[in-house]
């Protein structure tokens, strides 16, 4: 079981390393989108500080979503996916491996970049840490939920935008609690409630999303 999981993760990471630029572009997209807001809203430091958490979180949502469209697409196009459906392991496990690799490639870098972006918006100390922690719990959920959408839209024309329609609504709870935790801690209120809710969401997603994606994959490949 665990060996199969490890094998999938390593395979996907190796593939990603072959085109390193793909990995970097997700991070740059994240940085650019975050940097766009101050330009649109104006340089008022107080305003920027208040919207910081929301903006970083929305940008993380968008970046994760965009990189998702390619989660299964390459495997689907070259027929590897069919083969993966036939290996003697639970398909959900395979999916979990792919999602884990996807998170390491596109979620983790966002988490690591976030303090820098927070600094640009004038966040400090605790708020920065809170931003990082919420993203650390939240981005795996984004990858897990997104995998369902990516599996459903596999092989469809214009899949890119379609996936955003399916997935973004699912992301909303994570967004509310994630950004909410940062805002609450900035306002001096405890964010424990938010964090434990997010933890619960993560566990739930971890338990259910792989099965749902596996089912969706079977439908799409048929």
């Amino acid at each position, binding site marked *: 079981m665990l060996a199969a999981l490890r094998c999938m993760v390593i395979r996907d990471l190796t593939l990603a390393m072959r085109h390193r630029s793909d990995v970097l*572009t997700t991070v740059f997209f994240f940085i650019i989108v975050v*940097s766009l807001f*101050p330009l649109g809203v104006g340089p008022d430091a107080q305003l920027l500080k208040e919207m910081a958490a929301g903006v970083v979180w929305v940008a993380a949502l968008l970046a994760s979503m965009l990189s998702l469209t390619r989660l299964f697409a390459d495997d689907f196009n070259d027929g590897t996916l069919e083969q993966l459906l036939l290996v003697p392991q639970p398909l959900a496990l395979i999916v979990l491996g792919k999602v884990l690799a996807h998170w390491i490639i596109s979620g983790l870098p966002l988490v690591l970049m976030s303090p820098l972006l927070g600094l640009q918006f004038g966040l400090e100390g605790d708020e920065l840490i809170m931003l990082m922690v919420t993203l650390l719990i939240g981005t795996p959920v984004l990858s897990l939920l997104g995998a369902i959408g990516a599996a459903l839209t596999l092989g469809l024309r214009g899949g890119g935008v379609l996936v955003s329609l399916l997935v973004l609504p699912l992301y909303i709870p994570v967004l509310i609690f994630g950004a909410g935790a940062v805002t609450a801690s900035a306002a001096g209120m405890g964010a424990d409630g938010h964090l434990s809710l997010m933890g619960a969401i993560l566990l739930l997603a971890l338990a259910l999303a792989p099965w749902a994606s596996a089912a969706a994959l079977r439908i799409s490949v048929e």
Partner: protein
Amino acid sequence: MFNLFKFASPATFYPLAGRLAMGFGIASAILLAIGLYMSFFVAPTDYKQGEGYRIMFIHVPAAWMSMLIYVVMACWAAAGMIWHTRLSSMMASSLAPTGAMFTFIALWTGALWGKPMWGAWWVWDARLTSELILLFLYIGFMALESAIDDPRRAARASGLLALVGVVNVPIIYYSVQWWNTLHQGSSIKIVDGGVESSMSEIMVWTLLVMTFACWFYTIAVALCRVRSIILEREANTSWVKELLQGAKS
């Protein structure tokens, strides 16, 4: 300054570039040593900013170079587009990484200077923002170039991008005048041949020495890099074969 060699063929340019790179490298090392000595031991403490202003001697040259390199790069790209000279596009792509590096240094030192002076690492001021955009332009240039397999097509595509992006440079330069911002305006102006400045003379000299050091450094590194690029793209020509066989046997 590079225009001298515009029409030279790669075969004759390659050894010449080697010698020039060595010369500029040595010159830049000497200037850097002098410049650093001046910025820490000769230049006096600023009455307003204390010691912190010494960041200027690296910040300002880096910021200048970041813009200058982009313009030079765009010029080479334009030359490559117009005259189809192979060397021009190679020069353009050899400048990009150094330009990106200086842009990053300008941003980094600016941020480190901003904390003691303005009390914030970063403000969304026009100049700071446009410098950040310049970094993205450099990265876009390099990403596009590396995404295309065929080197000749890559050179032409990224050259076009450089030309389109060059409109951003005047925006950076004039942003301080167009929007009134936190960031300081030009303190050195060139008025009919003479240099006029609000800084003390010794600071201006230090700044100039450091600027020339960075400039020579850029030329040296770019020439060295273009030699690699020439070898890669001309690997099948007879002069490369002779050169390498001669070097190895």
